């Protein structure tokens, strides 16, 4: 059973504090090791989806002997149903930039990039003005650090960190083999810290108020707050900052329309949770003791009883079939087979048992696909097919 937990709203990220010069001054007066320790003890995990401990990421990059290193803010925000990074960059860009300068200070980088989703072109001007302020600040204090905005070109896969590097290097956006990981071999083959916009914004809170403040929020393994992009069949769609660890039941009480049939946690690459499992599901990172606990990049999509789960799945699969970079077999061909396969079952051209073959296929995709995209198709596929099998057939 998930820990019973009341929904707790919070207001850190968007609180407009206008004190970045002070905060940054304080950060830069500390030595990198202390800052890393602060981050590690906050237990902040990446908010881009994968949930990698941020302190550890910075630590590894800091330890690399390279002369050249990079800090990259991942603002490609492509996961369907996610729109929080846009808001952060629009409303509190200085928090992200403070974090980037802090990271540069910690790991020893002289250049940073914001990889901005192409559809967010309208943010660019304002963002560059703020960057100018920061670069001016850095110059004043003799800190060598430049930040550039790099515009993405519209492929979902370019949000995957190694595909993002390839795309920045002027190549086709295809994920690389891992290892090596970005902290040792990132942009242009140099040690690179790449963090999600929101992850960076949280470090502002941590550096300003101390790790304890952040750590005291949320639950074990899932500390702090998180922005949720709430959409679908809800009377109040929007972005909400909540403490991690809430049960999905509580979430649906708050955001549902009274007829919630299922919630897709984590976008197309996440899981669909049916009503009967709301109470047993907590929102947070997988931990040893917490029962079912689902990580998320922040997308929470609610579906009421008027929705066909077949259509939902069909929709996701179409998305994957198109957005797969196409390089690796399990993902490129697997996505096509899944989509055509459920259509064939629906039309009774294939027996219902074909769904089991497809489920085994998603397992192979999870084991063998080259990157997170292909590996995570299994999440939505199996959670939808297993929980709503009858809707797939009739």
């Amino acid at each position: 059973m998930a820990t019973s937990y009341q929904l707790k709203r919070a207001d850190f990220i968007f609180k407009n504090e206008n004190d970045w010069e002070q905060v940054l001054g304080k950060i830069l007066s500390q030595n990198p090791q202390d800052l890393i320790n602060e981050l590690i003890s906050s237990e902040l995990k990446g908010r881009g989806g994968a949930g990698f401990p941020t302190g550890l990421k910075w630590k590894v990059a800091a330890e690399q002997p390279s002369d050249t290193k990079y800090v990259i803010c991942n603002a490609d925000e492509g996961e369907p149903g996610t729109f929080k990074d846009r808001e952060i960059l629009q409303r509190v860009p200085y928090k992200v930039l403070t974090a980037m300068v802090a990271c540069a200070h910690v790991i020893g980088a002289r250049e940073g990039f914001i990889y901005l989703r192409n559809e967010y072109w309208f943010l660019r001007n304002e963002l560059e003005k703020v960057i100018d302020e920061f670069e001016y600040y850095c110059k004043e204090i003799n800190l060598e650090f430049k930040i550039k905005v790099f515009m993405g070109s519209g492929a979902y896969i370019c949000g995957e960190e190694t595909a993002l590097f390839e795309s920045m290097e002027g190549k086709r956006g295809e994920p690389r083999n891992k290892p090596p990981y970005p902290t040792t071999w990132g942009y242009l083959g140099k040690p690179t810290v790449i963090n999600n916009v929101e992850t960076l914004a949280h470090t502002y809170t941590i550096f300003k108020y101390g790790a304890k403040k952040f750590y005291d929020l949320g639950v074990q393994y899932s500390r702090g707050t998180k922005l949720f992009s709430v959409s679908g069949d809800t009377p109040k769609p929007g972005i909400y900052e909540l403490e991690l660890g809430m049960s999905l039941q509580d979430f649906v009480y708050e955001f549902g329309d009274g007829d919630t049939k299922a919630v897709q946690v984590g976008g197309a690459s996440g899981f669909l949770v049916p009503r009967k499992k709301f109470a047993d599901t907590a929102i947070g990172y997988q931990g040893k003791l917490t029962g079912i606990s689902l990580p998320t990049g922040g997308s929470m999509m609610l579906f009421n009883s008027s929705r066909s789960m077949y259509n939902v799945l069909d929709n996701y699969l179409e998305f994957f079939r198109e957005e797969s970079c196409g390089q690796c077999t399990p993902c490129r061909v697997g996505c096509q087979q899944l989509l055509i396969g459920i259509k064939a079952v629906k039309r009774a051209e294939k027996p219902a048992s074909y769904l089991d073959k497809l489920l085994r296929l998603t397992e192979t995709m999870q084991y063998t696909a080259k990157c997170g995209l292909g590996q995570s198709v299994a999440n939505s596929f199996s959670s939808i097919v297993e929980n709503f099998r009858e809707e797939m057939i009739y």
Partner: protein
Amino acid sequence: MTTKKINISINGFPAQVKPGITILDAASDNGIIIPTLCYHKDLCVAGNCRVCVVEVAGQKRLSAACATPCEEGMEILTNSLKVRNSRKHIIELLLSEHNADCTKCYRNGNCELQELASEYKIMTQDFIELLPYKTYSVDMYSPSIIKDDSKCIRCQRCVRTCAELQGVNALTVAHKGDHMKISTFMEKAMNAVVCTNCGQCINHCPTGALVEKNYIEEVWEAIANPSKHVVVQTAPAVRIGLGEELGFEPGSRNTGKMVSALKRLGFDSVLDTDFTADLTIIEEGTELLTRLKKALVDKDADVKLPMATSCSPGWIKYIEHMYPEYLDNLSTCKSPQQMFGALVKTYYAKARNLEPDKIVSVSIMPCTAKKFEANRPEMFDSGYRDVDYVLTTRELAIMIKQAGINFKALEESKFDRLMGESTGAGVIFGATGGVMEAALRTAYEIVTGREVPFKNLEIAPVRGMEGVREASIKIENPKPEWKFLDGVELKCAVAHGLVNAKTVMDSVKKGTASYHFIEIMACPGGCLGGGGQPIPTSPEIRQKRAEAIYAEDSHMQIRKSHENPEVQKLYRDFLKEPLGEISHKLLHTKYLPRERF
């Protein structure tokens, strides 16, 4: 320096391996073969087909063996149930997207996908056939290459080949998701882009998606036509490659058997391109010395140095696209194939009392670019198409099999005469550095009256597989008419693989190199690694072929082009003198710039 080994286990058996080595190599060193498709020894690792996945204890996900380095304590399972099931799924997926009509496929019998499907005994098609959902086209526009996307498994070996080995980048990946495919600039046809027709992508393609355009039936028809006199010439690298298609190990020398086979196929005359390789040396060597004289004595500012060899049609097309401003640096000599073709329908026809239009001139080449070359408008100087059909080594092997010839049991025969005599210098044209070596053997002797100062005439500095090699040879005590070359250090460079040609050309362009003579072969290893040679290819295979070529040379009685008696006779009876009037008409040409996309 001894590096410490690390301990791993493979399928439960302990092994010690070099740190950093991939799981694939570690397994192979320990006698375990892991299947691969996108992996190729010549290319950087892509890790995209995923058939090489293995299980590493403690990890839920499988790892691509070709792309994952071994780590201390790793316990690797290459054949667990999970691995097998996943691998089978992947092969099934590939087949579901594939036009697996093997009986109608050019690569039937030598296809890595087919082999894998057979190994895993994929007997049913459980997944839905995806072909009806797609529109594929077959690109037949190139005279050398057929590209059939319905046979493509998207391993990107061709793309990496064209980029990494050739630096041409004619092939690229286009689109994403289910539409992802291998394409060209603006999806133009292969004959309309920078493609050099080198055929390296064919050699590196695991399937039938890229194959040579074959002219086997046309040649059978010509042979069957009693009113035609069918002449065949064979390039140096064919004799040391052909055996690989017919049951011999790489590096086997089969010149005599090849000649016997060609006779049994019904060719009226079996001749040797090596003959015109020797001729090329005389013409090209004279051209080089003439250019040097113009530059050094006449101080002629218009003379272009370094002079570059022109016997590799892949290289010719490359320079036309990429360095058109250097076209005048090319030797004006045609390739040996085209010299041969021009002579067959003139000199040979006259000597044998044949009507040129009754002659069908066929050449067997290790090369696909030669198919394009034979079709160039510049190559009709005899008044007819100089070379009618170009077959690759592979196509010849197919004909031999079709004719039911037991190649291994064949006796050895000698080439027919006129134009069948050759020297060791002609034979080494088939290896990178060979033209240079042959040219130096002759030019040095013309100038000094002495043999090149290398043991056994083996000019070691220009041999080998280094991408770019430089050598210089100092001319001392020349004959009086070459006095101006006294003390001159003749600087040479040799490059093979167009990516290395680029290196040489860029340093020429920057002015950082002051070469007099450069030899460039489009294919890795030279013609012995040509795009028409047996598949597979690898650095080890090419090394063995090179050894065979040099062994051919050292076993020849005559090893200097200018001593070829038939070549001497050709000058006496027909050409009169090197670079003379007839030579100019038949053996030399000029090339024109091309667009760069």
